[in-house]
């Protein structure tokens, strides 16, 4: 599983990345988390707000810094 955190580097993006890491640890998932700050790459995903979370090339959510628990719930539900 490849998780990408899209954001141009403000504090919200960093928070989301750390919540994502917590969620992955909680569920014991085999996942790598990448922080994407390049605008052109971010643009390719059609989102309007940063930060956003992309899992295996599909946007899970955007514009919110969800808690680790909520992220874990979403990750569980998609599989």
């Amino acid at each position, binding site marked *: 599983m490849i998780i990408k955190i899209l*954001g*141009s*580097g*403000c504090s*919200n*993006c960093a928070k989301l990345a750390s919540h994502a890491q917590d969620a992955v640890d909680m569920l014991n998932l085999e996942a790598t988390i990448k922080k994407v700050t390049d*605008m*052109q790459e*971010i*643009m*390719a995903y*059609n*989102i*309007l*707000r*940063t930060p956003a979370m992309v899992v295996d090339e599909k*946007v899970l*959510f*955007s*514009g*919110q*810094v969800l808690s680790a628990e909520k992220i874990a719930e*979403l990750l569980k539900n998609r599989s």
Partner: protein
Amino acid sequence: MQFIKDFFSLLNDVLLKMTWLQNLVDMLLTKVFGINEDTYLFGSLSFFIYDVIKIFILLSVLIYMASYIQSYFTPEKTKRVLTKFKGIKGNIIGALLGTVTPFCSCSSIPIFIGFTKAGLPIGVTFSFLISSPLVDLASVILLASIFNWTVALAYVLVGLVIAVIGGTLIDKLKMERHVESFVIEAKHSSGPIEEVIEVKQTKKERHLYAFEQVKEIFSRVWIYVLIGVGIGAIIHGYIPEDFIQKILGDKNPFSVVIATIVGIPMYADIFGTLPIAEALVYKGVGIGTVLAFMMAVTALSLPSIILLKKVVKPRLLLTFVGIVTIGILITGFLFNAFSGLLI
């Protein structure tokens, strides 16, 4: 009728002006700390304590309520609504939605690109981007608490007009060619736009979001509030009126220009500028001068201009800055000229 007026007047005094708080603070300073009411120290301390508490309370409550309401107005919904309007109506709706849609300046690029990809004219996007930082639910109410509702509503109206005219002008001047090429390419290359799944929020999640917003904004802003109130307190207590009048008083036609020029490169939160504005008006500075300063600080911030520079070419960026600046200057002159009617 009079009863209703009195009722609202009372609500205004209790909730927004918090006259009870001012009296409490003054009583504390004189009775408990024994400070003489006529001293500069009293003037400054009283202003500082009262204003810090008042702003912190209002900030928390207003941001909570505004964020809760704003959780219903996502940029995604805004984009969908805006695609249905043509011409100047698009600019007007864009400006209106800009005031209620929450977003931090780091989102201005994704929003700009997203709106453009959806086919919205860049003028509409700019109307949105201009009104968003300029007119914000919480700060309008704070303005009403410090000055009065006439000023607050006039500020909203003028902000919206600047946003609509600015956006329309940018469209009329055919500035699309000044958008960075990769944005246009993205527009043409993407296939049918997949609607990003919006995570629907429950009421409980909205409350949680509002609470998180209060925490986050508070932690970002408290230092600006303290500094702002501190400066306001010093102005209030120690700096003599005629000194301020000489530099910024509304007899000085350049005061609006100075206020705007000083404000543009500054980056502080609007909550920090309000107490300074309050103190200056108290010392006789024209309300237009003060509003121009506040608008310059909020509408044109260095971070968002740096971000915008990545998606628009210099010509368009300058046009944007130019239009907003002229709008602010006109606002300043207008408010100064009509200040008799407003305050």
